Structure formats: structure tokens, C-alpha cells
């Protein structure tokens, strides 16, 4: 099911009524989460069930001995490798084992990462195994985080799951339900009104290919906001859904385009993935005593490059994604080296350099393959056009487009204000039946908008 559909709104309404009226709240949300995932298809559902069951059984021995953890990780990442990367890996190795397009099981990248992190936490003594399969299944299957995150850690979600199944009231009661509805509305606005409206323009520029640098920059700029509105919209809805049912999930975005360096940007973009990669990949790789003290910096940088390259690969099985991830790492290395050796540039310049770099690197994320990405980047820097998409040459059209692009940035800034402490306090003060009804009704109105073409959430494909 997709959050931006009317049937999902009906689904949530039914689940909410059952949740409010019946005593078995944990079971109701678990059943709803299963119902939410089942339309993905038999293969995806069976695979998810097998992975969850296997991880449930492995959580107990994992606590006792590390070898079980290795087995679990091989199982989880083996599944991911087979279902997401088999064609890429085989082709890269020069083997003709698998051919054709593969359909990636829905949410596999997310649940494999979440479950693996959970088992590692158990092994490190930072998490407790779940006492029942239902609790464990809900930990992963909750529809607020199942398909595209946020990738929840045990320490945040585990205790909430146990409270829910123990019949205890949520920690913050239902005080935050109004805020949850507001977040759902914000997320829907980002997705339905903004991301889906930008999609045709982005598709056109990347499909036709930019004719000149102006068109190339426009495409890249619009794509940056399209993917931001799309994924952060999804994450806002997920967060809001959690609050409606008394579950507090992790925030996944914190106005990343306001960041003034690349590390800060990654601390604000897909926060749960970044934190996961930091804690389970980057830090262990940095802290292994491989090299002497003199070379620790080099090891640190190496760990960074490896982590971000794998981050790129996590996003998609293609060289363009690997290059995208590596570029992020190299930018981080440059930023750190700069900070060590040179004075900080003015904030505006830092922001422009960070955002400009991100726009360029996103071309590798969006392009169909590496060669088209390189051609596109060439066009960005004035080395000839690769297609026919152009920015209107008459002054009015160009000016309107420029104003529109700046307006997107202004919206981003406005969003930062929406999440300020003051705005949150005001929101909680105004919360009540009127506001909740207004939020819910506006959300339903947005869902009623018939979509000209289906634009599924971009991160569903990962």
C-alpha cells in the first residue's frame, strides 16, 4: 500500500477505530501491518516472513556466541545480495548467470539492515531479544517504518513495542496524535503537491537529456527537491502515523539543504541510515587496529570512503550509485582536510559549495547509468549538450523558472521553521478536535486529487 493513496486513508481509518475500541492494540497493529505488506505480492510476503522468522530464532543464540551473529548476517545479506544485487554482481564478475531486470522485494534493503543492526545490538548487549514472535514481527513490520524506513533501532522502538503488547499506555499518551496528523498532512503536501509536480519536469530533462548547462542545472536542482520532498514526505507521514498510534519513530530528515558542510548534510539526510552506517560500519572500520598511529587518519578516511561507497551500493545495484557514494566520501575527506588546514570560508560560500556539490553528485543517483551520468555532468559544466531538453529562452519563462527554483529553497527554509521548538509548542497548544479535523480533512482532500500518472515513492525501489 502506498501512503499517498485514498485506500490507505480508508485503511488507516479502520485500523484507528479498531485500535481505539479494542483492547488488543499490539495485535491490531501487527495484523494491520501484515495487511499493509501483503499487497506487495506472495513472493515478497513469503520472503519477509522467512527472514523475520529466521532472525527471530537467531536472536537467542546470537546473545550467547558471536558465530551465530555471523550466520545471521550471512543469511540476511545473502538474501539482499541475491534479491537485489545478483545481476549486478554476476555481470561485474563477468559471469552470465543472471540476466534481465530484477524486481527487488519491497523494503528488503530496509528490513535487512534493521534486523541485522538489532542482532548486532543483542550480541553487544545493547538490546534484549523479544519474548514473542508477535513482538519481534511487529518490531520490523510496523507499517510506519516497514517499506522505506526510518530504520529503527531496538533502543528506541523495542521498549515501545513491549509496552504496546503489555497493554500499557504509550509513554506520551495520545497527546501527540494531533501533531501526527499534522505531520501526515505535511508529508502528503510534500509528496502529492510538490514531489509529484516536479517529477514530469525532472523526467523530461533526464529522459530527453539537457541541451545546455542551464537545462542540466535546472534538472539537477529540481531532482534534488523532488527526491527530498518525496522521501522526507514519506518519512514525515511515517513519523506522523507512529504518533497517531502512540509510537514515536525516529526523524529521518532535518532540512538537509540548509547544511553548510557535507558531513552536516549527511547528518540531516536519511538520518537513520547514516547513523546505522556510522555505528555498524564506519566506527568499527575506523577503530580496528590495522595501522600505526601515524596512519590512523588514512585509515579513518579509508573507512569513510568504504562506508559511503557501500551506502551508494545500498541505494542501487549500479556503478552510478557506487560513484555517487564514493563522491560523497571524497567530499567529506576534502571537507575535513580543508577544516584542518585552512580557515573556514564564509557560511554562504560553504553552503553554496555543499549544495552545489550535492546537486552535481545527484546526477549519478538519477541518471540511468554511468555513461549518461558522465555526459550529463559534462553538460553541467558546459561541455556540450547531450539531448534536446532546454530552458525557455524568452525572458519571462526563464525568470519564472528561476523564481520557482528559489521558491523551493524558501520552502525548505520555511520547513525548518515549522519544526522549531516554538512552532511545536504552538501546535501542541492549539491541538484539539478542530485542528485534528482540519488536518485530517485537508489530507483526504489531497488524496482525492487524481494522479495524472502513478509516481510511487522513489525509495520504494530500494
Amino acid at each position, binding site marked *: 500500500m*502506498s501512503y*499517498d*493513496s*485514498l*485506500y490507505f486513508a480508508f485503511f488507516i481509518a479502520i485500523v484507528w477505530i479498531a485500535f481505539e475500541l479494542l483492547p488488543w492494540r499490539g495485535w491490531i497493529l501487527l495484523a494491520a501491518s501484515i495487511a499493509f505488506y501483503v499487497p506487495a505480492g506472495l513472493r515478497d510476503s513469503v520472503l519477509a516472513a522467512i527472514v523475520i522468522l529466521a532472525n527471530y530464532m537467531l536472536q537467542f543464540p546470537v546473545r550467547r556466541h558471536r558465530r551465530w551473529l555471523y550466520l545471521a548476517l550471512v543469511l540476511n545479506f545473502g538474501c539482499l545480495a541475491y534479491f537485489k544485487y545478483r545481476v549486478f554482481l554476476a555481470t561485474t564478475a563477468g559471469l552470465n548467470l543472471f540476466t534481465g531486470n530484477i524486481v527487488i522485494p519491497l523494503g528488503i534493503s530496509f528490513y535487512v539492515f534493521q534486523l541485522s543492526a538489532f542482532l548486532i545490538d543483542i550480541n553487544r548487549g545493547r538490546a534484549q531479544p523479544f519474548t514473542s514472535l508477535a513482538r519481534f514481527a511487529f518490531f520490523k513490520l510496523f507499517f510506519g517504518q516497514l517499506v522505506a524506513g526510518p530504520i529503527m533501532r531496538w533502543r528506541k522502538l523495542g521498549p515501545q513495542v513491549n509496552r504496546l503488547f503489555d497493554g500499557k499506555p504509550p509513554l506520551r499518551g495520545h497527546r501527540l496524535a494531533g501533531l501526527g496528523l499534522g505531520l501526515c498532512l505535511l508529508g502528503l503536501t510534500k509528496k*502529492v*503537491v510538490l514531489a*509529484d*509536480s*516536479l517529477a*514530469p*519536469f525532472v*523526467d*523530461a530533462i533526464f*529522459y*530527453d537529456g539537457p541541451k545546455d548547462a542551464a537545462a542540466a542545472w535546472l534538472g539537477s536542482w529540481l531532482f534534488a527537491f523532488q527526491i527530498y520532498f518525496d522521501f522526507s514526505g514519506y518519512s514525515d507521514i511515517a513519523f506522523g502515523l507512529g504518533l497517531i498510534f502512540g509510537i514515536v519513530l525516529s526523524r529521518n530528515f532535518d532540512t538537509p539543504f540548509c547544511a553548510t558542510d557535507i558531513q552536516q548534510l549527511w547528518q540531516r539526510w536519511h538520518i537513520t541510515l547514516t547513523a546505522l552506517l556510522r555505528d555498524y560500519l564506519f566506527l568499527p572500520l575506523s577503530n580496528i587496529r590495522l595501522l600505526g598511529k601515524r596512519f590512523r587518519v588514512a585509515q579513518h578516511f579509508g573507512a569513510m570512503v568504504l562506508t559511503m561507497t557501500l551506502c551508494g551500493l545500498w541505494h542501487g545495484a549500479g556503478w552510478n550509485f557506487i560513484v555517487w557514494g564514493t563522491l560523497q566520501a571524497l567530499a567529506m575527506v576534502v571537507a575535513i582536510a580543508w577544516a584542518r588546514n585552512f580557515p573556514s570560508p564564509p557560511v554562504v560560500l560553504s553552503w553554496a559549495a555543499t549544495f552545489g556539490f550535492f546537486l552535481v553528485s545527484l546526477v549519478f543517483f538519477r541518471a540511468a547509468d554511468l555513461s549518461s551520468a558522465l555526459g550529463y555532468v559534462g553538460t553541467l559544466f558546459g561541455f556540450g549538450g547531450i539531448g534536446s531538453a532546454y530552458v525557455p529562452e524568452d525572458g519571462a519563462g526563464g525568470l*519564472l523558472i528561476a523564481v*520557482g527554483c528559489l521558491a523551493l529553497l524558501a520552502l525548505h527554509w520555511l520547513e525548518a521553521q515549522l519544526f522549531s521548538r516554538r512552532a511545536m509548542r504552538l501546535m501542541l497548544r492549539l491541538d*484539539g*478536535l*478542530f*485542528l*485534528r*479535523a*482540519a*488536518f*485530517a*480533512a*485537508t489530507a483526504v*482532500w489531497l488524496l*482525492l*486529487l*487524481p*494522479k*495524472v*500518472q*502513478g*509516481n*510511487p515513492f522513489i525509495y520504494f525501489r530500494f
Partner: protein
Amino acid sequence: MLRVAFRKAVILLTGIATATLVLELGFRVILVTPLQWVLPLPSVAIYGPDADTGVRHRANVSGLWQTEHRAFIRISNLGLRDRDRDIAHGNTPRAIVIGDSYIEALQVEWPDTAVAVAERILARDIPGVEVVNLGLSGARPAIEVARLQSQGLALMPNVAIIVLLVDQFLAPGGSDDSEFTAYRSADDGEFRLSYGFRESGGYRFRTSVGGRVFYWLLDHVQVFRLLNDRKNVGLLAEWSREPPVRTQIGAWNCSSAVLDSQASLWIDGEPTNARALLGAFIRDLAAIGHSNRLPIIIATRGIEARCPALEPKRSALIGAIRATLEAAGLQFVDLDKRILTKVGADGVARLHGFRTRLGQGHFNVEGNRIYGEVLAKIIRGALLQH
């Protein structure tokens, strides 16, 4: 307790009403700014009831059309997908083009429609010449005949072109007149135009005072349009919606199935029901042409012309169609062949669809231009001949 419940209900309804007003205001702001070309909006409601065909365009309605491609459209003073015109046209020649959504071409602005292109081309040689667009989405053969009778003849044309999608005779529901005009078997066994929709609740509502209020709301309240849009696509439309598929340009189907079924219809007269529909269509057009001294050209569409291996079969079919129509006093044009000659086999797909859906759907601007040039040539020939 009742008072508390009542108070809560009032607050709830006030919240919903506020949301509705905010949304209405938002749509109105979008509509008066360039944001209308980017942000989502409810589509304009251009269709209304018609006693002769079941449905027609509502005169002087304008707004954004968003299906396939965003275009600003305006329905003419005569209630056509056309520019405003006087019903009388003096001594200057006038042609009408009747067809379905391909001729209607809501996905492009009016000057880019094939009919408008044809008019511009012809006007270079024949000053004052008019080519009127009578395209209507979903127009089946029965609707095309009814439209020619009711709206086409009123325009006093010098020539009429009917763009006919040949599959229509074999499509299921060809005799269903519950929504639109259809050919049905009368008591004497003959197929005649039938108007069962006039008795339907939907039609009666749309032509009543309630219907007038309904259309007033559609014209003036954006959220009402939104509800109507949703009603048209279905409440759970997204359930079955597939993500956009990038089409492979240049591939086409060379199966002989379509040709075989058409050959059965035009040559062998099978199936009999479809043959009866076809017979009634030709009979009525011939009668209209004869009684009004109106040259009628049937331009067929949908007979694949890009398959050399099927050419002998296709030639036989085209020969049969030509013979059948000319025997009834009608003229025939093989539209697919003319387009193929103009753009080549590889160019046909590029006339359809937009951007990432190039190759799929209705004609894009280039497609309309090519069809416009072909139509201009057909009309010029007909005008010179008559």
C-alpha cells in the same frame, strides 16, 4: 451528554469546512498564477448531456486539461473542441472533421490540434476556408453518425470527414445505448440509432434543475471539480495503477490477428452483429450524404501499415473497405498508409505520447502536425473535386 456530543460534532464539521475553504482558496491562488502549469489541480469539466449523442462539449467552458499532458483548453461558442465561429459561413468553404479523442486532442492546445493545423495550411491557398473540429472522446460509429446529423449538418459543411477507428465495430458493447447513442436492432430487425440513455437516471438528472446546479458547481467550485474527478476515476483508482513505464520507441506489433478479424468483418460479413452495425453505419452516412449533397470521406485508422509481411492481406482488406464504401457513395482514405508514407515506419510511434511516455497514447504536438498536414491534403482534394 447530548450537548457535548452536539458541540463536538459542530467543532468537527467546522474543522472539515475550514479545510475545504483553505483548499478552495489554495486552488484559486494556483489558478491565477503560473503555478497552474506545475501544481496539481482538478481538471476542467468539459462534457455535458446531449439528447442526440448522450454527451457533448459544454459551450464556452475553459480550463486546464491534465490527462497525458497539461494543456489549456477552451470549448467554443458552438460547444465544440474548436475556436469560436459563426454557424453561418457565407461563400467560403467549410469542412468538418468528426472523430474520437484523437481528433478532439485535449492533450494539446487548440492551435496545435490536427484540425487547426489543417485549417491553417488550407487557408494559405483558400482564404477564409474553415475546418471545424467535431472530435469527441469515446465517439463510436453511432455517435459519429448522430453527431454529423445533429451538429455537423447545422454547420452547412461542403465536405465531411469521418475519422473511423476500425476496431470500433468489433468492440464489445457496441449496441449498449445506456450512456451514449448506439445502433440497436429495431422491431423490423434493422439496426437503427437508439437513445436508451435518455431514460437513464444519470441523463435525467444532468438535464434537470439539479443537473444545472451540478454543472454550475463544477464551473465555479474547485473542490466540487475535485470530487467529480475522483468520481470519474474511481475512489480506489490507485489500487490498480501501475507506475509509469518507459516505452520502447520503434517497436510495433505485426500480428495478423487484427487484420484477420477486420477481413472477416469487411469481406466475410462475420460476426453478423458487427456486420449489421457496419451496414447501418454505412447506410446512414450514405443517406445523409445523398440527401444533403454532402461529400463524406471515411478516413480509417487502426489498420497497421508497418508490416511488409502482412501487406498482401492488408491490400485485400483495404480493397474490400474501399469497394464497400464507394458502392454506398462514400469516399475512402487509408489514413494509416498516408501517415506511414509521410513519416516512415520508424516515425509513427514518435507521433504518440509525451516525454517519458513517448510512443504511447494520443498524438503529441508533432503527431497532430503530421495528421493536420494529411487532413489538409484530403480536404483540399475533396474541395477541389466538389
